[in-house]
């Protein structure tokens, strides 16, 4: 393997393991509101790197359960934090990957999620009412994992997403908002789960997505913006769902992601030379998986979870990543 393209898996595993052990670090506590998401990111990255067991399954499940907000009937990001649809999805995803869905109160969570749908069809994040097409995706993803998609008003949900579509083929956070690659991912993936890709102007959107690649090989999220490793996933997942990953230069993107690794302490950053974090580590590894990087497990770009987990639940949709390379 040529060293300049090597993904430092052992270092990244060690980095993810170290994240839970920095409890005397101020930053650890300042990010408590992201803890549930961070565990989902770390676990997914570990699964894709084939090191699922690097974190204790029992401890993880107990942590997730300790974040249950019994008043709301859903999960917060951390014990004693309020329930939110985003941390609730992460909790479901973690328990799903850990094969511990029997711990969930499916009825109450379903009720919580459905209660957040607004008359326009969009979902709010919690009872305080911020709405965003991200939350529509989260609701659809969570209900699919819970086996409760049939309780959703699909027409209404799709209708709101359709109204977020712009002339450039992309989608914004709300009606009228500018297209953004992360919103494109959530809207495309939600439509994929609901079998409604007909809503998308596929050629226009794939063109817009392909134009996110910059000379460095990295992808940006909007026209005339800087590249960032996390867009490797937002853009690639949408391209996979549209079966158009070949419309960008996979080798150059791979090099860009690899170059954003921290070669000393592990983890992947937003850009080469920057400080790593678990969010970019996960989305960098996810991007590499979709690009066929050798030695990784398949990631399902629709649910952003290990493909084997989604297949086992019979939820796989017709996406297409690049074939897994035997070696570099």
């Amino acid at each position, binding site marked *: 393997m040529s060293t300049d393209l090597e993904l430092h898996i052992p270092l990244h595993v060690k980095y993810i393991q170290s994240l839970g052990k920095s409890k005397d670090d101020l930053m650890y506590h300042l990010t408590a509101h992201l803890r549930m998401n961070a565990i989902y990111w770390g676990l997914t990255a570990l699964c894709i790197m084939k090191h699922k067991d690097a974190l204790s399954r029992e401890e993880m499940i107990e942590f997730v359960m300790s974040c249950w907000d019994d008043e709301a009937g859903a999960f917060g990001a951390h014990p004693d934090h309020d329930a939110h649809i985003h941390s609730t999805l992460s909790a479901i995803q973690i328990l799903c990957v850990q094969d511990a869905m029997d711990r969930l109160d499916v009825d109450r969570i379903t009720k919580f999620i459905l209660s957040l749908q607004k008359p326009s069809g969009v979902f709010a994040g919690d009872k305080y009412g911020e709405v965003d097409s991200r939350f529509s995706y989260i609701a659809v993803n969570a209900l699919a994992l819970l086996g409760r998609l049939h309780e959703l008003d699909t027409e209404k949900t799709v209708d709101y997403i359709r109204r977020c579509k712009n002339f*450039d083929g992309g989608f914004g*956070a709300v009606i009228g908002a500018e297209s953004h690659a992360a919103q494109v991912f959530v809207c495309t993936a939600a439509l994929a789960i609901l079998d409604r890709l007909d809503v998308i102007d596929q050629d226009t959107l794939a063109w817009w997505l392909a134009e996110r690649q910059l000379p460095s090989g990295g992808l940006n999220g909007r026209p005339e913006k800087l590249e960032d490793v996390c867009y490797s996933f937002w853009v690639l997942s949408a391209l996979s769902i549209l079966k158009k990953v070949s419309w960008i230069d996979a080798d150059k993107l791979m090099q860009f992601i690899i170059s954003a690794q921290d070669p000393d302490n592990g983890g992947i950053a937003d850009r080469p030379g920057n400080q790593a974090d678990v969010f970019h580590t996960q989305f960098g590894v996810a991007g590499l998986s979709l690009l066929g990087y050798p030695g990784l497990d398949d990631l399902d770009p629709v649910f952003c979870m290990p493909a084997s987990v989604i297949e086992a639940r019979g939820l796989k949709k017709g996406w297409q990543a690049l074939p897994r390379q035997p070696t570099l």
Partner: protein
Amino acid sequence: MHGVKRVQYSKEALEAKRQRDQAKLKEYLALTHDILSRKKNNDMCREAFELTTRLLRVNPEFYTVWNYRRQILEIDMIPKSSAADTNDLLAEDLNLTTALLKQHPKVYWIWNHRRWCLEHVPNGPTEEDSNGWRMANWNKELFVVEKMLEADARNFHAWNYRRYVLGTMPVRRSELSELAYTSRKIEANFSNFSAWHQRSKVLTALWESNTVDPVKSKEEEFDLVKNAMYTDPGDQSVWIYHRWLVGDGGEAALLKREINTIQELLNEQPDSKWCMESLVHYKRLLLQKHTTSFQPGEQVNLVESCIGLLQELGALDPARRQRYKESSEHITRLST
């Protein structure tokens, strides 16, 4: 974490930083514990409210604390206040979020709280002028959001908030003033696609309501875009906007005119990817929609020209060569 440079600290430096942080950490954890315990006990007193201010200044992403703060306002403070005092309370919270946004312009929770404050502005100051406070607050919001867009003209939180504020003004502003705003933002920087996007939305509304003459206004837009294309033919914002302006290609004459304009620019800038890409796009629209009006030989010429351009594009922009190849195949199929 975005845009933070990686620094390799020595063991000693790390240890020194850890020591320094210990006091801060202890204080932060004690404050967090205090607030979350009070929240559990439904403590709605003023002191708890002040504690949330302290914590949110350190960590404005702590959404549970924002929620608690709103609970205290909603359950205790607002019901106990006169309308004028409520308006003042909300103004204070708006000021707090303004200060926080300066440091954290992309934190969703701060923008959310701002919106919540706005939605709780009471009627007043008088029965006759029941929208007076709202008008004052909404105008101030536009001012703040313009400051935010001066600091970062692409901040989508600020743009989304701007659209929200404009859409809920107690007395609607004319879309014409928003059109003028996008003109200013675009003149300041042609690359600002956020402003072009906003312009496409504003113009659509203006054309639908016939506030401006759609035909004349479109021509003015074509002039503006042409100017921008010539200024920097490599800037994709302008080309994407041009695509919107041309639309679905129903008018053959318009397509042909724009093809000529772009061809002229390509003659001056023979390496311009976006000229070539756009020529292929508009020529393909002609091939898809206007074959019945073609002169003899026109179809073959268009197909050949597209295939030639796509070959050049493949060499010039190899990252996307597969797309150019597929376009070429598609156009070949159109001609058979």
